[in-house]
């Protein structure tokens, strides 16, 4: 038999791919190319086409991508929104948008224009773009399986109500936010009703409000991100099943500023993070069943502010060193465990040389309780009188809850 079934089917496949190749074209946009502007090129384009945009300055109002195309910027072409329009709107699935500079979007609090906004689309990739001075940077609503990678998002916001978020995601699922750099927006990364997503290796700093802000976003992971000097640190609210590994929270300073603020969170794991020089490193309110382990708390005003409405949290194997107060709380009810941590303020001994102190450690100092109720008393901190009071309280606890203690404080810091 000259033609086997296999051969025929292979031929058929070849034909099909060839027609397909004939269908999807490459369109060039730029000075001296087939198209001068992006909009006519997009009108011409069909699904699965590739549009190359060469370096130039494009000011064409709102650019809507409603076909499944790949848009590639060559040498970072600039798309300008003239401070009136939403710059790029992606309204189709399977769009790739990469290598552009998108700038000067409009400002409106009714429809939230963004530099790049994705409406109701799946499998969109936004990569290697530079976003400058937009109201919202990258905005995803009802997105699924979208990837936002290696973008630099920069704005120059001064007041909270006059600037949007860097990367804003709303009612989305399975997003990947990787390696972005966000600066000067209201919130660096904002998640609301976003599930099964990963935020990995992003840098978010000098944002006006939060470096990262998420609410009602379950089953997400935050890994190896870096948050520095954001107005109020990082806030995590009304969420469950969250994983936070290896992030750095640094220099969140101010009265209402936290390394992480956790409010109504349950079943989360916070592991291997570094909290450095924050006013309050980790603030827990209504947080339940959390596992907080292998973190480093150093140089903070307050290491852990744990409100009395938190329960069943396990705080273990952390290093607390160089904090003004390791822990503070607002009540006397203790429903959490604090074992096997390293505390640099521990003054006990270890007679059996097993590396674990023989006396329990009371991490809650009298003065942190006093300051919780009467913040001005900070003026007298470290005066002889206060040191005397603290000593007595350590020996005979009366104001601080007696069962607030680490029964197995380790003597050497963990290698974290």
């Amino acid at each position, binding site marked *: 038999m000259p033609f086997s079934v296999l051969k025929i089917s292979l031929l058929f496949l070849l034909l099909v791919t060839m027609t397909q190749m004939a269908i999807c074209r490459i369109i060039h946009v730029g000075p001296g190319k087939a198209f001068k502007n992006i909009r006519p090129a997009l009108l011409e384009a069909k699904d699965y086409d590739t549009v190359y945009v060469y370096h130039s300055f494009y000011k064409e109002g709102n650019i809507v991508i409603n076909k499944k195309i790949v848009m590639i910027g060559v040498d970072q072409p600039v798309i300008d929104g003239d401070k009136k329009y939403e710059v790029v709107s992606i309204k189709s699935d399977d769009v790739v948008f990469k290598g552009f500079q998108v700038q000067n979007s409009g400002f409106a609090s009714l429809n939230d224009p963004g530099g790049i906004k994705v409406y109701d689309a799946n499998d969109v990739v936004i990569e290697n773009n530079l976003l400058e001075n937009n109201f919202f940077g990258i905005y995803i609503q009802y997105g699924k399986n979208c990837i936002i990678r290696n973008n630099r998002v920069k704005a120059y916001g001064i007041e909270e109500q006059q600037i949007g978020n860097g990367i804003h995601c709303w009612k989305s699922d399975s997003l990947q936010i990787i390696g972005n750099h966000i600066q000067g927006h209201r919130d660096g990364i904002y998640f609301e009703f976003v599930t099964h997503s990963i935020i990995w290796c992003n840098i978010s700093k000098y944002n006006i409000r939060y470096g990262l802000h998420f609410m009602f976003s379950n089953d997400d992971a935050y890994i190896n991100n870096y948050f520095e000097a954001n107005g109020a640190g990082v806030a995590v609210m009304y969420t469950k099943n969250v994983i936070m590994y290896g992030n750095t929270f640094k220099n969140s300073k101010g009265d209402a500023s936290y390394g992480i603020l956790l409010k109504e969170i349950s079943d989360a794991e916070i592991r291997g993070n570094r909290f450095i020089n924050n006013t309050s490193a980790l603030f827990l309110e209504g947080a339940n069943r959390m596992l907080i382990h292998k973190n480093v708390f150093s140089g903070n005003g307050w290491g852990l502010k744990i409100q009395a409405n938190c329960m069943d949290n396990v705080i273990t194997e952390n290093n607390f060193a160089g904090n003004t107060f390791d822990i503070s709380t607002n009540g006397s009810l203790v429903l959490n465990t604090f074992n096997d941590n390293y505390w640099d303020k521990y003054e006990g001994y270890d007679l059996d040389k097993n590396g674990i102190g023989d006396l329990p450690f009371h991490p809650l100092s009298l003065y942190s309780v006093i300051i919780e109720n009467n913040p001005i*008393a900070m*003026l007298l901190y470290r005066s002889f009188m206060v040191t005397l009071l603290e000593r007595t309280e350590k020996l005979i606890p009366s104001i601080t809850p007696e069962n607030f203690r680490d029964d197995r404080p380790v003597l050497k810091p963990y290698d974290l």
Partner: protein
Amino acid sequence: MKGITKFVIADILKNRIILFYALILGVFSWSIFSLEDNTSKGIMSLLNIILLTVPLVSIIFSNIYMYNSAEFIELLVSQPVKRSAIWTSLFIGLAVALNVSFLVGIGIPVLLFVPFMTGMTVIITGMMITTIFVSIAMLCSILMRDKARGIGLSIMLWLFLSLIYDGLVLFFMFQYADYPIEKPMAIFSALNPIDLARIQVLLQVDVAALMGYTGAIFKKMFGTMTGYLVSLILMLLWIVIPFLISIKLFNKKDL
């Protein structure tokens, strides 16, 4: 005046107590920093010494020295030297000797082990404290002719400034906790040189915590450049005012 100052310094150094003082301070600070790898913790231990031991030694030593040199002063007064010159050179002599031993004992290890800004704050406030208490001691010695009463007074003053004052501030703070007392409290504690010194060091070490609720007040009052200058001026006033009063009394005193 130069001659008298030189003589006083030589005399103080000769009596070896001051060398012993420098040695003790040195042993303390070297052992603190070599045992403790966490420098901010080391600074805190050192702060207790600076806020308690240094003023105590300065005030007691200067006071006793003044009483012991009563005959020497009488002798000098009979010479053609101005009284204020005698008093000033005694003051300078005491202050220099005590400050040198402070610098040798605490200054060197602090500069070696502690970050520069924090270290300088610790050293400057320590030197201020030393000089302030020399000045207060001289006032005590001129106020009380009787040695026992004079030393008693200086111990009382030391106790008041380093312990009782803070207790009082704390007491008022709790009594009036419901009122907006931030500013009066800050001013109140700025009036005590020991508190002032402590707050300056606190601003270096516990910055993160101070950025909290009281941060605004703290920053405004003490943390800014003006705040820093104001606290420096307040400390200088603590040196100058008791000294001027004592010099006035000495000028009029019937020896």
